[in-house]
């Protein structure tokens, strides 16, 4: 009962309904009772909340009334961002489209798998690798060809050509061992196109030298060999040239002596060879290497293939040694080595002109 009276008093105080006498008493009470202030505050807050709540409800009612006047549906139509037909199509039918797409992808994959498409791809790849390997091989082959050598490769052809030169007027001819290796029959052909059958009478695989003897009755004496075989070594930078049959006709090429040693495929020094710098082709193998004074200083050969522009010639001293080593019973006719050089005083053109009758195309026939 006291509580109720107090609350009534507080409410009247807050509403400003107290008369001056009551107000004075109430103010006195506030000073005496510290709790009272707090109670007044709490009560005010609570009743304010009720009041604001009421206002809110009222405001919402008003807003709802306004809202009634809006044609929401028309507005909605107007305001919806209408997506493009394809987007709408997707939104409305995306599940169906997804299923269709899945089936399509599955079908394509299955078809590809069944038809072995992927396997083929792999094969293609392997083929490509094979092709690359082939190309590499071809490139290597080209290299070996360029540098004359590689007997195996060359001799696989059934009809192979090299060069040879006479060392005597009666038909002893020098060429490379690798040219005539494994041959069934060997013919030589002179610059005029006449062929003669020959017999291999001596070979020296380690120096790549072979000596042939013409055993054809049609063969006529060549006359004196114009060059002599040099016994000593030649000097570096000496001008040299060669004649040979890289193609059907005789071909002249000149260059210089690059080094007094050659080297083998595994880079070991080869003292039996010169390194020469001159343009030679596969058919040049076995050709004579002549210096500017008309001395025969070597036999074109090639044992190394890895260096660009490096070709080799067997030193003439080894040729002489080989000639010396021919067993006497292999000689079917006397072998007289020419020691007179009739080219010395001539210019290169004259030298070559004389020389060309002593340089032969060596034709090798294999099964």
């Amino acid at each position, binding site marked *: 009962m006291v509580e109720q009276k107090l609350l009534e008093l507080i409410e009247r105080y807050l509403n400003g309904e107290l008369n001056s006498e009551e107000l004075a008493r109430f103010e006195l009470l506030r000073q005496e009772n510290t709790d009272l202030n707090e109670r007044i505050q709490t009560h005010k807050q609570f009743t304010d909340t009720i009041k604001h*709540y009421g206002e809110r409800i009222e405001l919402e009612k008003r807003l709802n009334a306004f809202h009634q006047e809006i044609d*929401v549906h028309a507005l*909605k139509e107007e305001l919806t961002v209408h997506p493009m037909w394809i987007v709408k199509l997707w939104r409305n039918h995306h599940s169906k489209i997804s299923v269709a797409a899945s089936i399509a992808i599955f079908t394509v994959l299955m078809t590809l798998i069944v038809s072995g498409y992927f396997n083929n791809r792999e094969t293609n790849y392997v083929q490509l690798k094979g092709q690359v390997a082939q190309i590499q091989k071809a490139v290597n082959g080209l290299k070996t060809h360029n540098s004359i050598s590689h007997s195996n490769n060359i001799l696989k052809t059934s009809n192979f050509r090299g060069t040879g030169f006479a060392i005597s007027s009666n038909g002893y001819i020098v060429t490379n061992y690798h040219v005539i290796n494994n041959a069934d029959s060997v013919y030589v052909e002179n610059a005029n196109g006449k062929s003669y059958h020959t017999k291999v009478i001596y070979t020296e695989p380690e120096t790549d030298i072979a000596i042939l003897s013409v055993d054809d009755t049609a063969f006529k004496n060549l006359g004196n060999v114009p060059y002599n075989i040099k016994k000593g070594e030649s000097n570096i930078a000496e001008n040299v040239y060669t004649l040979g049959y890289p193609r059907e006709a005789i071909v002249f090429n000149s260059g210089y002596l690059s080094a007094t040693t050659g080297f083998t495929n595994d880079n070991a020094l080869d003292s039996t060879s010169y390194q020469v710098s001159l343009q030679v082709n596969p058919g040049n193998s076995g050709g004579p290497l002549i210096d500017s004074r008309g001395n025969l200083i070597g036999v074109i050969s090639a044992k190394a293939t890895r260096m660009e522009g490096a070709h080799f010639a067997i030193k003439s001293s080894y040729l002489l040694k080989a000639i010396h080593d021919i067993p006497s019973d292999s000689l079917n006719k006397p072998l007289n080595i020419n020691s007179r050089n009739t080219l010395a005083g001539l210019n290169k053109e004259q030298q070559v002109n004389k020389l060309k009758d002593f340089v032969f195309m060596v034709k090798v026939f294999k099964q």
Partner: protein
Amino acid sequence: MNNIPTDNEVILGILNNSESVLKRLYLAYFPMVMQLIINNNGNEDDAKDIYQEAIIIVYNKIKAGDFELSSKLKTYIYSICRRLWLKRLSQINRYGGDIKDFQEYLVVEEDTENHNERDLQFTKMGSALQLLGEPCKTIIEEFYINNKSMQDICEAFGYTNADNAKTQKYKCLQRLKKLFFQQ
């Protein structure tokens, strides 16, 4: 009547309890908010809820006298609605992380947070009043919301004297407090 009120008109109108200005304000910006909501996974009812909340925020802010127009009212309302809608979307897990905007907007988190606090109080008050039942609910509403005098209430409810009515009102208020703070 349907033309868009100027921002100053709105402020003065609300401060002066002008029904027509409030209505013009309401009608002016609803389409903008509707556009925002229905194009961001909402429907027309969501738009109505969000928009009314925003209008209430603006209304209370103006009434409280702390409304400073730092931008266009239109932008402010849009920003409030955007913020409220983002919050709603994340509550119902419909928020895809992206919202399609139609207007520029401001950061208004403070305003919406204050509003949320007040909203919570009102929700509590509403349910407390429902639980209170009649005749208490009406007595409280008449006295505290509609500012009716105890004499009027006494007559309307047929109490024999004002003291009985006062006692009844006192009891009702005590129960309401209890219900309110229990929540």
